[in-house]
Structure formats: C-alpha cells, structure tokens
C-alpha cells in the first residue's frame, strides 16, 4: 500500500492523555509534520497561529471538544483550519454525527491505526488547501467576470420616490429617468426578501449603517442578487427623511459560491466514504443533480481498461469494466484538461452509457494527490440543456477534489480486504469432525471498518479420543490481531496434547503469550469433551460463557450457560492460575462457543443479549448444526448492525446410536473407519456377521470416495450412521465428482449384494452413497450363521 505524501503542516494536538498525544505525535512527525501539543482547551488558542490542522479529543478536563470546534468554526480568523476530532469513549455513530455536526472535518475513534491517521490527516490537509486555492480562484473569476459596478440610489420618503442613476434602472429593467415612484420600485423586490428588506429599512433609524442582501425581479430579465449598503438621511431636526444606498450586483458571485459550495459538499461526502462502492453511491447521484445531468459516471483507469461506475437518474446503478476506446474519456486522459464533447466525438461505449439522446458531455480529469490522472468524471446532458465552459470548469474543480477521497477509500478497502484474507488464512481451513460429533463453525467480519480480525475457533482431537473445543478473541484489531490469533492457535494446538485439562492449558498458553513476542491480550474459552462424550471440563480466560442445549424430559430442549470461575485474559500477567469446572453434559447435547460480537449490542445490556441468544438457540435446536449456526448469526431484529467480529463453534453429540465421522480421503484412514464402524456396531449390539456386512459395504463405498472423488488425495469424506426403526442407514459422502468410475465396479457389486437397498446420488457438491440394512434380516442371519 502506498500513502499519498502531503506537504508537511503545523498540527496542534489537544488531548489530556499524554500517551495518546505521544502516539499521535510519533506517527505525524515520522510523516514530517510539525506537531504542537496542548493538554487542555485553555492553552490551545494561543498555539493556533500558523496551524493548519487541529486534532482535538472530544472529552477534555476543562471542556468539550465539540464546543471548542464550534467556537473555531465561528471565528473568521480560522476559516481555513482543518479539525479532526478523536475519542476513546464516544464511539457510537451518534457521537460521530454530533462531532461532524459541530464542524469537525473528520472523527476518529481510538486506537487509531497509523495508516488511517496519516491518510485522514493527508486528506484533510489537501481538502483545506484546495479550498484556499478555490477562494483565490474565485477572486480571480470575480475580477474577470466584470461584476457590475456600484450603483447609487436615494430613497426620498417625503416624495415617496427613488432617485437613481441609469445603470441602476438598467439593473431593475426600468426606463431611464431621474426618479421612479417607490410603489413602482418596491414590487420588483423578490417577495421572499421583501419583508426582511422593509424591516431592515425601518430599523435604519436606530442603526447608522445597514448592509443587506436581497434579490430583485426585473420584468425583462432573470432575477438578480444585490448587496445594498444604506445609511439614513435626516433633516435638520434629525427626522428620518430618506435613505442613501449603494448597491452591487452580486448575482454571478452568488451563483459561483453556490456552485463551489456544492462541489465542496460533494468532495466532503466522498471523503467520508469508507470504500469505493459507497463513495460512488454517495457521489454520483449528487453530481447528476448538481449538473442537472441525465447521467454521471466515474471512469477509473486500471491498466488497459477502465472501471466505470454509472448513475443514470435517481439510483446508483451499475459498475462495469470497459476497454479504453477513442472518445471523450480518452481525450481527457490525453490532454489532461476538462472538455466539452459533442455526440459525434463519443466512443460507442460512451454513447451506450450516456444514452443515444445525450448531445453534450462534460469530461474532466480526476487527479490524485501527486497530480497523476487516475480517472475521469463525466456528466451528460440531454434535451434542451446545454453545457457552458463555466459548467466544464466547475466539473474540473470537482475532478481535482475527488482523487484524494477515491484513493483513500481504495486504500481503506484494500487494508480491510488484507485483514479479512489474513484472518481467513489463519483460521482452520476446515474442521475435521471428531468421531461422534457434529461440528459447525463460522467466522464473520464486523461492520466496523478496520476493527476486524483476531477472533478464532478451533476443534482439536486428542489422541486419547478427547476433544478440545476452543474459541477466543484478541483484544487488538487489524492485521496484527489476526497474526496474534494465528500464534495463539498454534500454541494451543501444540500444548493441547501435553496438558491434562483446560486450566493447565490456559496457564501454559498464557505464559507463552505473556513472555513471547505477542504484545496483546486475548479472551479464551476452553472446553475438553471427555472420551465418553457425556461430560466436559471448562476453563475460562475472561471470555463470554459457552452455552449448552440439552434434551430434557418430553424432548424439551433447554439452553443454559456454562460457567467456570474466570481467570484473566491470556497475556495479561506472567503467572496466572486458572480454575476449571467439570460439567455433566448428559446423553445428548449441543455446545455453543462464540465471541462477544454475537451478543454485544450497543445500548443493550449483556444479560438481555445472552437471554435473547439462548431463546434463539432453543428455537432452532431441532435443525442440524449448520442451520443452527446460520440462525444464531442472524441478528433477527434488523436494527442492530454487527459491529464486531464473530467466531462461532457449535458441537453436537446426538447419542451413542449415531455414527458421525469425517476422515481424510486417504486409503490409510480405512482401518480407522473399520474400527469406528465396529465400535458403533457393538453399541448397537449387532452380531459379528452383520457387523462384517456393514463394515464391508461401508468401506467399499468409502474406498470409492477415496479413489474417485479426489485427484490429489486431499479432502475429506464423511460417514453418517443412523438407526431408524428397523433399518440401519449409512451414508458416505464426498465432495468430488467421481469422474473416472471404476470399470469393473466390484466394490459396487459388493454393496449391491450386501445391502438391502442403496442409492448413489451425484450433485454439483459431490457424491453421496446411501446404504440401508434391514436390522430384522440381520437377526435372522444371526440364527443361520455358523458352518
């Protein structure tokens, strides 16, 4: 990732937290900015001279950063000052909204990652610098636009007439004369401005001078904006007899100011977007409206083609990749200036996008911070609307202001994508299902833009048939947290076989995290499931409590939270001893481990969230673990945004009568499969002969899955065995395609003969062989068996 470099600026940090200031200063001085610091609001104003950017904490001991911001905004001396608010406490969207409302240009929540800080600071500085350039440009435009000169008028109350020069009557569209009656002149004032103007003129007796802006509506031309400066005329007795007024026609200046304000608003809107999608969605419809265009598009250059985002009308519509053909966009890229293009010079793609009735197109370069062209912005006119050079220049100004927000949004989106992919790489790619257990896992990144990464789940089979279920959450965020998570997972995996139980494991992991290179904390829940599958041992390191669903009398499923005395999060202190608790799970159970993203709702108490989660879990307990996982991830009320990451691990034991296996698609696992099948048959009290038949048919199906489903010996196959009344049903499932079926099909012959029924079903997701045995016929065979 590359960060646009910005010319150094003088930056004032107002924050009472010394460490917070230190952290910001380190990052900013590394980017060559000059940093001045104030610990409170009282000492801040004296340091403002020459400052381009103020970074202010919203909560300070001697006042509120929001009011400070408001005060700065109301002071003309600091018109060009950029203001960035920060907070460690006020993190909700409404706080952010209140901050921006007070006049801040941006609002960041601690801890602030260095790239985010630098890109924000750089964007704000450029924004304010561009603004100052605009003000200067406006001054130039004004002088070149020959704004009408000053006209003078005298209102004589005694005669009820207005005396003025010919230039003034031209402005109002009246005949040249020495004077016109007041009741001829008055109706020309715009009705919306009339009452304000008359009340101001009545007050003039008290004030000595008055300045007011109002519009007039001449009969022969469009309305004009006038700025009037008036002073009272009194007779010898001091009685008000008239008004002397000087007026300037500021119509063009007003229009220009409005347009510049629009551009400013557009650029600010774009700067607030966190990714390109949102930036385009926020910007394009507004561009359409501002240029009264039938369509607006942004063409971003990407090697040999352009990524086009188009809006034709009200809704943000589409994004597509197009080759770059000779046309308006190519022309702008070539000459590096805004252009007015006629229909004849458009490329076929442009014609298609703008519509065949578009007759004029404005196109302007979008420039990055280092003045490189990164794209082109276009608007198209249809019908009677025709664009002027003024419209074109304004689009040019917009193009210059859009580059930075686009690059920033791109960089932020890139960083998020990086963390997400890192996080996914460091989580188990696939959980191997321990014998007897159904397992479902989920990871979902939170909505908070860069606050992702660091949540994990894992399911580890120990050699003694015990199973370790673990879920954790690293306190930090971003790429570093994802890496920390990967390290803690590796520690856990390595230590799990060496520790007797979860308390010992947590103590050992804590020692490594605390003494190792990892500089972060993590909350962890560790649950060891016994080899019998009927009991477990739990230990906790500051984590949210796991939930268990058990089947009570009358098949009522109850949800309860498991508790164990919680120790410190791992990495918090050198030697921590953890307590563990033994839990009887019963004959059938479902355990749910999760991270706090699943239950944390802003404005909701944790107890309430936990109660809601429990009732949602019981409501969906009947489905399989995968659908239960999906149901738990749905927030349901549609109001709450999931801000934080979620890691979720569900394990279910459905009793001894079932067989659940997942094995690597490798011939070496066939002996393990036979062992598990024989153990299952024993639990079902099948005789030796029937056991042999079930083993034979199932293993033939498994061998087929291993041989034909996977070309590189990678992947898994799954075995499910269930007893349903008089039938024993075994399903062998793989995720391959069985591209080369066995030519002699001896294995299938065996299955066909041994089983009472079998079905082979191939889908896009793999192949499923379902074999059923009649349990009754197996008992008959038992009597016949023997030589």
């Amino acid at each position, binding site marked *: 990732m590359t960060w646009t470099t910005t010319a150094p600026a003088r930056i004032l940090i107002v924050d009472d937290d010394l460490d917070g200031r230190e952290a910001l200063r380190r990052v900013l001085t590394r980017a060559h900015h000059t940093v001045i610091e104030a610990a409170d609001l009282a000492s801040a104003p004296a340091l403002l001279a020459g400052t381009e950017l103020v970074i202010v904490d919203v909560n300070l001991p001697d006042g509120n950063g929001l009011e400070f911001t408001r005060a700065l905004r109301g002071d003309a001396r600091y018109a060009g000052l950029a203001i960035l608010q920060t907070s460690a406490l006020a993190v909700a969207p409404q706080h952010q909204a209140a901050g921006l409302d007070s006049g801040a240009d941006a609002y960041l929540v601690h801890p602030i990652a260095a790239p985010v800080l630098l890109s924000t600071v750089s964007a704000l500085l450029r924004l304010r610098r561009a603004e100052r350039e605009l003000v200067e440009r406006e001054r130039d435009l004004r002088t070149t636009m020959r704004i009408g000169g000053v006209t003078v008028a005298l209102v004589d109350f005694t005669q009820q007439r207005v005396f003025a020069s010919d230039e003034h009557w031209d402005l109002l569209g009246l005949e040249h004369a020495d004077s016109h009656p007041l009741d001829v002149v008055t109706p020309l004032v715009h009705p919306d401005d009339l009452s304000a103007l008359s009340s101001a003129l009545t007050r003039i007796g008290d004030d000595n001078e008055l300045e007011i802006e109002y519009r007039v509506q001449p009969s022969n031309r469009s309305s004009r904006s006038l700025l009037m400066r008036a002073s009272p005329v009194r007779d010898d007795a001091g009685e008000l007899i008239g008004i002397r007024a000087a007026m300037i026609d500021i119509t063009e200046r007003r229009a220009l100011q409005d347009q510049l304000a629009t551009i400013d608003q557009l650029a600010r809107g774009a700067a607030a977007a966190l990714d390109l999608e949102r930036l385009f969605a926020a910007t394009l419809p507004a561009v359409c409206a501002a240029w009264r265009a039938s369509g607006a598009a942004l063409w971003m250059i990407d090697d040999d083609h352009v990524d086009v985002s188009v809006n034709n009308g009200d809704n943000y519509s589409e994004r597509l990749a197009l080759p770059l053909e000779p046309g308006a966009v190519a022309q702008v890229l070539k000459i590096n200036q805004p252009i007015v293009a006629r229909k004849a010079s458009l490329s076929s793609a442009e014609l298609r996008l703008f519509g065949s009735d578009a007759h004029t197109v404005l196109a302007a370069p979008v420039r990055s911070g280092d003045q490189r062209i990164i794209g082109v912005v276009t608007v198209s006119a249809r019908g009677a609307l025709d664009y002027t050079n003024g419209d074109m220049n304004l689009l040019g100004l917009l193009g210059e202001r859009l580059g930075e927000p686009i690059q920033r949004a791109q960089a932020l989106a890139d960083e998020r994508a990086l963390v997400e992919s890192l996080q996914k790489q460091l989580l188990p790619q696939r959980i191997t299902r321990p014998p007897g257990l159904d397992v479902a896992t989920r990871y979902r990144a939170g909505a908070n833009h860069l606050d992702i990464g660091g949540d994990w789940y894992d399911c580890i089979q120990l050699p003694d048939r015990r199973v370790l279920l673990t879920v954790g959450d690293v306190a930090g965020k971003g790429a570093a947290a994802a890496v920390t998570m990967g390290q803690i997972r590796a520690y856990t995996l390595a230590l799990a076989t060496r520790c007797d139980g979860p308390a010992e494991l947590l103590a050992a992991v804590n020692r490594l995290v605390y003494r190792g290179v990892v500089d972060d904390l993590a909350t962890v829940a560790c649950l060891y499931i016994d080899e019998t599958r009927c009991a477990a041992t739990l230990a906790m390191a500051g984590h949210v409590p796991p939930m268990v669903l058990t089947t009570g009398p009358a098949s009522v499923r109850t949800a309860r939270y498991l508790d164990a005395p919680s120790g410190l999060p791992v990495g918090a202190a050198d030697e921590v001893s953890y307590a563990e608790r033994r839990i009887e799970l019963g004959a059938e159970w479902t355990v749910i481990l999760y991270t706090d993203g699943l239950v944390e709702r802003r404005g909701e108490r944790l107890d309430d969230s936990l109660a809601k989660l429990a009732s949602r879990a019981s409501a969906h307990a009947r489905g399989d673990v995968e659908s239960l996982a999906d149901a738990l991830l749905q927030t349901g009320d549609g109001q709450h945004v999931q801000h934080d990451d979620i890691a979720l691990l569900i394990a279910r034991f459905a009793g001894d009568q079932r067989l659940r296996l997942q094995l690597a698609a490798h011939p070496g696992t066939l002996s393990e499969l*036979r062992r598990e099948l024989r153990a299952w048959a024993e639990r079902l009290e099948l005789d030796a002969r029937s056991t*042999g038949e079930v083993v*034979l048919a199932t*293993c033939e199906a498994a061998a087929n899955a291993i041989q034909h489903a996977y070309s590189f010996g990678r992947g898994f196959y799954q075995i499910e065995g269930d007893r349903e009344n008089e039938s024993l049903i075994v399903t062998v499932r793989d995720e391959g395609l069985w591209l080369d079926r066995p030519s002699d099909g*001896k*294995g299938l*012959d065996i299955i066909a003969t041994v089983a009472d029924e079998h079905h082979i079903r191939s889908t896009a997701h793999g192949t499923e062989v379902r074999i059923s045995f009649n349990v009754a016929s197996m008992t008959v065979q038992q009597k016949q*068996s023997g*030589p």
Partner: protein
Amino acid sequence: MNENSVTINSEIAAGYQTLRLVGEIDLANASDTYGRVSELIDECQRTIVLDLDPIDYIDSAGLKSLLRLGDDLRRTNRRLAFVASPSGISRRVLELTGVASAFDVYDNHESVQATFGSTVE
C-alpha cells in the same frame, strides 16, 4: 508406514506352495501385498495356494490385487487356488465378487492336500 501390513508365511509341501496371509488387506496395502506375495512365489511350483483363512478383512481392492497373481500364473501355465472357510469374511468377499466360481476355493487346508498332495509331478 502402514500399521495394517500383512504378514505372509510361505510353505512348500509336496507339489504346491502355500502362502498364508495374516492381517487386513484394503486399498491402502493392496498393491504392496501383491508385490510382496509375487516375490515369495517359487518359480518351480505349478500350483500356488493362497490361504486367506487368517485374514481379518479383505476388500474388493485387496482381492483385485490377488487376482493379478492369478493372471501372472496363468501366463506361465500355472494356477492359483484359495483357502477360505465358509463362514469367514474372505469367503464372503470371494463369493460376492464372483471369484469363487472362477477359481478353486477350498474350505480348509485338508481338502487342498487331498486334491494336490496326491498329484505329485
């Protein structure tokens, strides 16, 4: 590497060679078993008897590898026979795959001896 490696005992009696296979044969060790049995076959013997009675498990892949031995022997004008007790798993697999009708399958070692022991060449 394979925990289920098959143990093979070779015994040459008057007129034929007996190879006793002990263990489990499946996809994982089928071709390995074929190779090891091949190496043990005595070139001078016209009849090779595979005793599958001590086998705890054999699948179709395992059986296929043994049938390759039958093909090898037929090419040199020799023959392959099996011992598998009627109640055992190997007999079941031999029957299920139709091998039993294409080869001589004996219930026990005594009937093998009765057949081949008398025809000394």
